């Protein structure tokens, strides 16, 4: 969205193809954003207003084929329509890791194991947060790095934003249930950006949230449908067993099949981590090896919202510069 409006501002004619019925991507499902816990819709509204009617937005569109011409591209759409363009920007984002693939956590099998996305949806809808049996959770656990930094899940990379999301959601749970015990089970806490570490400090100091270092190895369901989890308490180097009423899995980023399909059509290089490779990691991070094709945001790997917006701006400028050369 940002890239589109920037380009429009620069006087370019932009067509924004969206697969969903609305633009905004994952941001639409997010209640509040880290680190300041401001409502997600604020940002979304800003972006939408900024976009206004500057660009031609076409929702529910799927690109079936792309013909790469000398200096332009022909897009064949599922709708039957086709359209020509001088430059392509892939901003098709990411998918969330399918938590069912971590079978040992029992997601979609045990009643009270949910994902961070589901919890966020609960926050957003304002629906009461209870166990599936309808009782107020007395102890809530957050499992970090679900589907990230995990050879068994086939993802060696770090999804970057789950740590801070975990801390944010933990605080939000405490805001709702001050009496509840909240645990974060982590391998490392990567508070990589500004105000993140302070938020982590607040979580400990103000909200009394416990962070326990170790990766949850397996979960099981008790008779009362609470979850008993096993973990090594690496700080005492002893195995630890704990019952939680609600277990939240902080699911990471995975490349979306759609992105990979488009990449294949444009034969763009794909990295070991199955995210798209820019022309140069440092100096040409929004360009690709293919002239006229550009990348922005989470097609290149895990991105925070602020970083994605910044990246989109850069991409817009790169595209503008490129179009001048035509």
């Amino acid at each position: 969205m940002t890239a589109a409006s920037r380009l429009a501002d620069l006087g370019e004619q932009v067509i924004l193809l969206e697969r969903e019925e609305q633009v905004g991507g994952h941001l639409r499902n997010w209640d509040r954003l880290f680190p300041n816990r401001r409502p997600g819709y604020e940002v979304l509204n800003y972006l939408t207003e900024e976009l206004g009617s500057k660009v031609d937005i076409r929702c529910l569109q799927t690109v079936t084929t792309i013909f790469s011409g000398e200096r332009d591209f022909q897009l064949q759409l599922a709708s039957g329509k086709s359209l020509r363009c001088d430059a392509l920007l892939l901003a098709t984002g990411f998918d969330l890791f399918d938590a069912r693939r971590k079978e040992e956590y029992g997601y979609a099998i045990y009643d009270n194991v949910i994902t961070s996305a589901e919890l966020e949806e609960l926050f957003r809808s304002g629906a009461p947060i209870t166990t599936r049996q309808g009782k107020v959770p007395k102890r809530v656990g957050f499992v970090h790095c679900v589907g990230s930094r995990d050879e068994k899940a086939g993802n060696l990379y770090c999804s970057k934003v789950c740590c801070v999301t975990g801390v944010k959601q933990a605080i939000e749970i405490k805001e709702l249930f001050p009496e509840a015990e909240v645990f974060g089970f982590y391998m490392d806490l990567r508070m990589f950006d500004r105000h993140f570490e302070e938020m982590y400090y607040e979580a400990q100091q103000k909200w009394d949230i416990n962070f326990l270092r170790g990766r949850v190895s397996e979960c099981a369901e008790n008779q009362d449908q609470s979850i008993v989890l096993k973990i090594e308490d690496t700080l005492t180097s002893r195995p630890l067993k704990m019952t939680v009423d609600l277990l939240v899995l902080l699911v990471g980023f995975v490349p979306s099949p759609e992105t990979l399909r488009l990449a294949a059509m444009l034969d763009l290089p794909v990295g070991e981590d199955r995210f798209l490779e820019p022309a140069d990691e440092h100096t040409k991070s929004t360009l690709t090896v293919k002239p006229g094709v550009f990348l922005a945001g989470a097609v290149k790997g895990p991105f925070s919202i602020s970083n994605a917006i910044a990246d989109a701006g850069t991409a817009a400028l790169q595209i503008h510069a490129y179009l001048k050369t035509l």
Partner: protein
Amino acid sequence: MIIEGKKRLWQEYQKEIADDRYFYVRSCVRQNFFPASEKVFLRILKEELGKDVYENAAHTTCSGIGYHSDVVPFETAMTVIARQFSLMTESGYEHFVTSCITSFGLYSEVLETWKHFPDVLQKVRGYLKEATGRTFELPKNVAHASDVIFRFRNEIASRGTHRLVNHLTGKPLRVVEHIGCHYSKMFPSKGVGGAEYPYVLVGMIEDWGGEVIDYPERRHCCGFGFRQYIVRANRGYSIANSKKKFESMKPYQPDFILTNCPGCPMFFDRWQYALSEMEGVTYGQNGEGIPVLTYEELSGLILGYDPWDLGLQVHQVPVEPLLDKLGIPYDPETKFAGKDGQDLGRPDAPTHMKFF
């Protein structure tokens, strides 16, 4: 518990099980632990299902116990297994069925190794040739005996005289299923239902009318863990593991435990006795233990075989309460009578556990 979730997983972990012409290899220890089980397996396949099962008198241990106790090197184990395959090849069979879970695990391990490192396979062929002058083909299909029973569970049910239902209350029996660690923990794809929620025994229980208990320590090892058991001083570890499981399953009030491994039923059965003697605890209802069955013994009961022919009298946790629930008739008099009627002698009654 969201059952759909499990079903979806079970769909993912389907495995091919040959339907006839089996080359059967036995377990080292089961005939001492639960003497009738392997015999019953053969009887069911041959007499009930009319399958072709071949046993070769020359087959040996797979050396798994030695391998897992760190006394047999992997090369040796592979060569021994190569010999088993050569016996199969000679006898003109391609479907390999093992009675032992550890063997099954080891066979899978060896075959995977050979698949990924063909040079190792060549080496082993060389060893075998050198040592015995034998050659061999790889089996087309390797299954554990419980896989085979699983495959024919409906046939068994249809021929059966009993179902896993309490004939007094009409309620389904509540069953704890325990899978031997070496069945699918090493190679989830080689086990029916995978490693986390194996289906092989669940399938039998459900299709025979029972209800499966999923308790927190379900995944935990029975406590055999070769090294732990074989060294006497280490048996404290072994029994502690079993105890952990008993304590975890007790609140669910299971009617019996079903297993598919040589070691597990042995330890569930004997350790319940040992614990009752050491700590005075029992885990079943009103002072009884929780009966432990092998899948063959259970199949036998379903098919209405005489409990004593199934060797249930050698269980240390008495099975009578279970037989009563199943409504299976038995003669207490003949419990300790041998095949030809001679007296096998009665064991001392346990101090705390109810004995019949």
